């Protein structure tokens, strides 16, 4: 017996020792591999992110402390001079008034997108067709949109002809005065980005379990009640995300006004101004500083917004 136990023990001990040993080594290798695996998967996106986002940003920040003109081999470190110049020239920030138009437009855009998303999340005839129609503008290239709408707003263009079908002959230059030009441009950007907001809202609404509607209907809730007590609270996180995107988008509006008016007639936004500083007047250093300031402004606005509307968990049930 003792023999067997004695004999039995070593073999038992041996594998135990072996496993202990193996557990000591294999897990380390395994742990290493387990530790490495996510990084391997992350490598591609990280490399892309660093090369195309963080390195250029670091570059930009570095240039903002120099007087570089964008091509000359000579560049001098000028310290905070560019920032001082920016902050002592209030006229450079006047262009933010233009963002007001885009801000107002994005409020309209969110309401309209929310309306369509709600309507189309219920059973409606041709709903997939309408979904496509609403999302389609977002897929079109911004440059193409700019050109299309130039014809649209032209004297005797599409808008004027459509209005004349209804007997209205406004005879106005839509892009002719600062107010009308900015309203027109903001309208174009609503047309363009409505689809994105709409899809985000639609996704959020459809992730709300269907039983809730059924239960609500049994309790006698009509569509308005359903929106008020189920949908609205259910999509709050997406709603606040959309607001953040809209605010930062309004502050940095660029494509549509740049292509359509090039910033003429009081439609110059902060980004257009920055581009002009860099590529027209060869002040790459100053323009980089302006870009950094815009980044900080957007971050600050986002932060304030998050403080005002904290992102709490939604619990519908």
């Amino acid at each position, binding site marked *: 017996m003792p023999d067997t136990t004695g004999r039995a023990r070593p073999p038992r001990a041996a594998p135990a020792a072996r496993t202990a040993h193996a557990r000591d080594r294999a897990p380390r290798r395994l742990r290493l591999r387990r530790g490495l695996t996510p990084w391997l998967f992350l490598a591609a996106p990280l490399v892309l992110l660093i090369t195309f986002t963080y390195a250029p940003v670091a570059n930009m920040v570095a240039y903002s402390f120099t007087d570089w003109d964008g091509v000359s081999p000579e560049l001098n470190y000028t310290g905070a001079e560019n920032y001082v110049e920016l902050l002592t020239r209030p006229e450079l920030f006047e262009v933010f008034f233009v963002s007001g138009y885009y801000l107002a437009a994005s409020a309209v855009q969110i309401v309209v997108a929310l309306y369509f998303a709600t309507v189309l999340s219920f059973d409606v005839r041709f709903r997939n067709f309408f979904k496509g129609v609403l999302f389609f503008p977002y897929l079109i290239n911004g440059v193409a949109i700019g050109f299309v709408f130039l014809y649209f707003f032209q004297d005797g263009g599409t808008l004027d002809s459509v209005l004349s079908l209804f007997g209205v002959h406004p005879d106005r230059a839509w892009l002719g005065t600062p107010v009308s030009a900015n309203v027109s441009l903001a309208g174009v950007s609503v047309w363009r980005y409505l689809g994105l907001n709409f899809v985000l809202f639609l996704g959020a609404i459809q992730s709300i379990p269907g039983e809730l509607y059924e239960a609500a209907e049994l309790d006698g809730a009509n569509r308005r009640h359903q929106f008020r007590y189920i949908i609205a609270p259910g999509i709050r996180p997406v709603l606040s995300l959309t607001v953040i995107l809209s605010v930062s988008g309004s502050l940095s509006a660029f494509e549509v006004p740049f292509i359509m008016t*090039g910033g003429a007639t009081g439609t110059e936004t902060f980004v257009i101004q920055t581009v002009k500083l860099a590529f027209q007047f060869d002040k790459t250093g100053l323009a980089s500083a302006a870009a950094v300031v815009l980044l900080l402004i957007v971050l600050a606005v986002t932060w304030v917004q998050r403080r005002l509307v904290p992102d709490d968990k939604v619990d519908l049930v």
Partner: protein
Amino acid sequence: MNRRTKTAGSLLAAVLLAAGCTGSGGTSKGEDAEAAADPGKVSGSITVLTHRTDLVQDGTMKKYAAAFHRTYPKVKVEFDALTDYEGEVKIRMNTENYGDVLMIPSVIKKNDYPKFFASLGTRTERAKKYLFTDFTTVGGKVYGQSPMGALPGFLYNKRVWKEAGITDWPTTPAEFLDGLKAVRSRTDAIPYYTNFKDMWPLTHWTYVDGAVGCDPRATSRLATGDPWAKGEDLRVGDTLLYDIVHGGLAEKDPTTTNWEGSKPKLAKGGIATMWLGSWAITQFRAAAEQAGANPDDIGFMPFPAQRNGKHCATMSPDYNQAVNVNSDHKEAARAWIDWFTDRSGYAADNLTLSPVKGAPLPEVLRPYEDAGVKLIELDDAKGAVVKEIDNESEIGLYKPDYRQDLVDLARGARKGSLDDFLGDLGERWEEARKATGS
């Protein structure tokens, strides 16, 4: 957090380092691209960067290259046509790889030319034969040569102006305005077309400089004083533009104009006048032919101002061709520039001025010759200073912005008076002049 700041810091350091490295880019300073003694011996394959995408696409450049090849059988020429020439070349010039021959982009500071380009010879030697050498001279050496030159002027539809009862060129801005008014009342044409939306046509109004006062030193005057002071050339030009728009003599909605569309419109008589350069004549004639209108209706007249009973027009260069200082085939590159300037017929094909002194004016400018318009070559000694002041002030003499503002002011889309507007430009110019220390 800590690790993150560290990587950001090292990234920043790497960036600064990389940026510092470009400082040593122009080591081979002051190199020359010698002219070849024997065309048969020059060899190599060269790349020519060009903004003429149209000529590369329709094979015209290839024809030039073939003709060049007959004289220089051992040189192979390839073209690299860039749509956004300025933007793309600017970025490529941060490396050493920007072709063998290229057009000097406007962003390069004149004093930096020796760092980027090989010299073509001394000013004194080249000026004997060529025009526009002044525009690329740094330290007595010339770094580029424009293959053609242009005169500024009003393209107009002769038929329309005749219908309005005007056959002689106006000699004062007031007379010119009366002419436009006559066009408005007696014909269906839009008297003047700004091309506001396409922006760059507005920049041509700066080429008024020199045409009013007939002063070859007009550019230097910009560098030393207020360009918008009473009686200065730019003030006269900008006031005329203001009066045209203010008097309702321009198109109704300038914000949606269309350059391509404006060409056949002028040819057919829908538009009477536009301020452009002589280079545009060929394009308008082609547009006229395409639209089935008479190309001979396209006329060209100088700025309505006279000195001693004669009109003046300034000759200005197009893009200047230069040799990349890092090129391995400088001799071949130089050969291309010389051949293209002297013998390609490029200037004549485009109905523009030849940069070779004493060459005859193109046929389209015969009326200029007949009327005795005095052609002046501007002295560009202060060109670099003017550009520096211009950038510092953010006015943009050769950029559309301030003229767009001017047009907006004239048509009431912007508040203020012309005097205040031009006065403000003058103040900004003076301030920038002091800041740049000139």
